[in-house]
């Protein structure tokens, strides 16, 4: 859609073709771009995997949105003279008020639900008093711009200040002392409410002294609903993402086919004290005494297993290659991590072992909708490692991750020597990261 809008702005009459489930999204995107009359046409969903004959039938069939022949829409869209609306587009302000009209608490709870400003769990209403208390959690001015977010690459960015982040922190039930963590999450530029059809989520990991200062739980149940800070930090990140980026509304600003439970809350600290290895943020070049939050984009799958038993290599390989678009974020209980350390692995060595042994045939690797869509063009453009993978013969085994793709974090309460592998892409500037964002943000800068 963004490309179609850009072409129109370049003076090229353009017809964007989408599948019908994206009709509301197309309309909203064109409106936000000031070009609400862009001449969209639609074919039925799906397109992926259909034969030439089936797609030809779409072309010769009916546009399911306009209820007219598809090609009629294409030809008329390119040739029908412009109307007054086509010439002027739509110019308008979309300012949001500072305060809402006064009402009862019950009515305001309903208003927030009706406007899709909640996650459908009860919220703390962001009264002036609560927001004032929240703002005491940072020395930054309430009107300082923190950053900008958008649900995906072709949507417009919305901006926000410290106060807006505090409002959403209140709604999530967070405490003032958590605010620097939440501001750092917001400053990452990574939305926890991506609109991707893949139902992605984010997983946030807190490192450094602030974990203990605010009472986060890196022990038993670290990833579950057993700690106020863990729970409300992740929820705050999710709520602020949906509200500060311009929404996360199914069909308009959210297209994930399943949704994702991790969109409710997904934040935990690393158990640095019980880990045999250095912490994540030190791996990323920060000092141990700094406090940081790191964000991984994924949550598409989870694999689980136990520490290094006799067949751990086979088990690890099965987990590593279970899905291969988003690389693994491996979370280990300290017992599991120490088991690998006892085998002589430091963290980097284990990551390199994973990268070396996570192999698929080129045929299997490329037979994936998202890999084909996003990585194949990079390979065709000669960008490594995708170019080498593309050159491989169909039966040739190829390494599907580089060591820098794979991350290991230690957390948990040592009641079981287990590991989990989440799909989790560390967000940094790299080929294929069209969403941007900073993988690790220093929390101390937001105190």
């Amino acid at each position, binding site marked *: 859609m963004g490309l179609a809008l850009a072409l129109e702005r370049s003076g090229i009459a353009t*017809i964007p073709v989408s599948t019908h489930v994206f009709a509301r999204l197309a309309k909203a995107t064109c409106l936000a*771009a000031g070009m609400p009359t862009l001449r969209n046409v639609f074919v039925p969903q799906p397109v992926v*995997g*259909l034969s030439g004959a089936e797609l030809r039938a779409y072309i010769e069939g009916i546009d399911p949105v306009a209820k007219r022949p598809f090609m009629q829409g294409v030809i008329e869209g390119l040739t029908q003279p412009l109307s007054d609306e086509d*010439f002027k*587009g*739509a110019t308008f302000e979309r300012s949001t008020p500072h305060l809402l009209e006064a009402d009862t608490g019950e009515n305001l709870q309903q208003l927030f639900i009706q406007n899709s400003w909640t996650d459908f769990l009860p919220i703390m209403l962001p009264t002036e008093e609560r927001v004032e208390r929240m703002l005491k959690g940072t020395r930054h001015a309430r009107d300082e711009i923190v950053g900008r977010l958008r649900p995906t690459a*072709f949507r417009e960015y919305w901006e926000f200040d410290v106060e*807006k982040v505090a409002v959403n922190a209140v709604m999530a039930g967070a405490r003032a002392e958590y605010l620097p963590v939440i501001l750092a999450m917001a400053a990452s530029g990574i939305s926890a409410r991506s609109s991707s059809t893949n139902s992605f989520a984010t997983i946030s990991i807190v490192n450094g002294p602030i974990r203990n200062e605010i009472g986060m739980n890196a022990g038993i149940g670290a990833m579950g609903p057993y700690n106020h800070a863990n729970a409300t930090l992740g929820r705050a990140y999710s709520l602020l993402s949906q509200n*500060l980026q311009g929404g996360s509304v199914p069909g308009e600003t959210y297209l994930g086919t399943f949704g994702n439970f991790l969109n409710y809350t997904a934040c935990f600290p690393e158990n640095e004290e019980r880990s045999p290895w250095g912490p994540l943020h030190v791996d990323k070049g920060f000092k141990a005494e700094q406090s940081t939050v790191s964000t991984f984009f994924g949550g598409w799958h989870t694999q689980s297993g136990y520490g290094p038993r006799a067949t751990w290599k086979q088990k690890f390989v099965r987990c590593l290659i279970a899905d291969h678009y988003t690389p693994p974020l491996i979370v280990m209980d300290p017992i599991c991590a120490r088991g690998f350390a006892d085998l002589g692995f430091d963290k980097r060595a284990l990551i390199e072992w994973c990268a070396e042994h996570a192999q698929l045939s080129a045929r299997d690797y490329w037979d994936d909708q998202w890999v084909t869509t996003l990585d194949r063009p990079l390979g065709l453009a000669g960008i490594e490692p995708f170019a080498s993978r593309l050159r491989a013969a169909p039966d040739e085994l190829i390494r599907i991750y580089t060591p820098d793709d794979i991350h290991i974090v230690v957390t948990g309460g040592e009641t079981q020597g287990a590991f989990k592998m989440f799909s989790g892409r560390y967000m940094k500037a790299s080929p294929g990261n069209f969403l941007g964002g900073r993988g690790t943000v220093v929390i101390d800068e937001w105190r």
Partner: protein
Amino acid sequence: MAAKIKVHDPRGFPPRVVGRRLANRLESLDGKVIFLVDCLFESSDVFMAQLQQWFAEHLPAVTTRIIRPRASMVDDPDMRATIAAQGNAAIIGVGL
């Protein structure tokens, strides 16, 4: 009667929307060059090949050329420049 309270609006600051006109339309497609932009989603290449075939069969006076951006989901100014220099219109598709 329950007391009324004031609360903050939780939304961010949206950018101002500036109206933009559509590009001029063509009086006729005859003799024109239409670029068919394969957006690189899976099967979009098959769709565009079929669309090209449809034009060849039904509107043979139209020249169609299939073109691809450098990557999915991002703008490609070089490709847009090619279309602007060598074409009269574009059809882009199709994802999922």
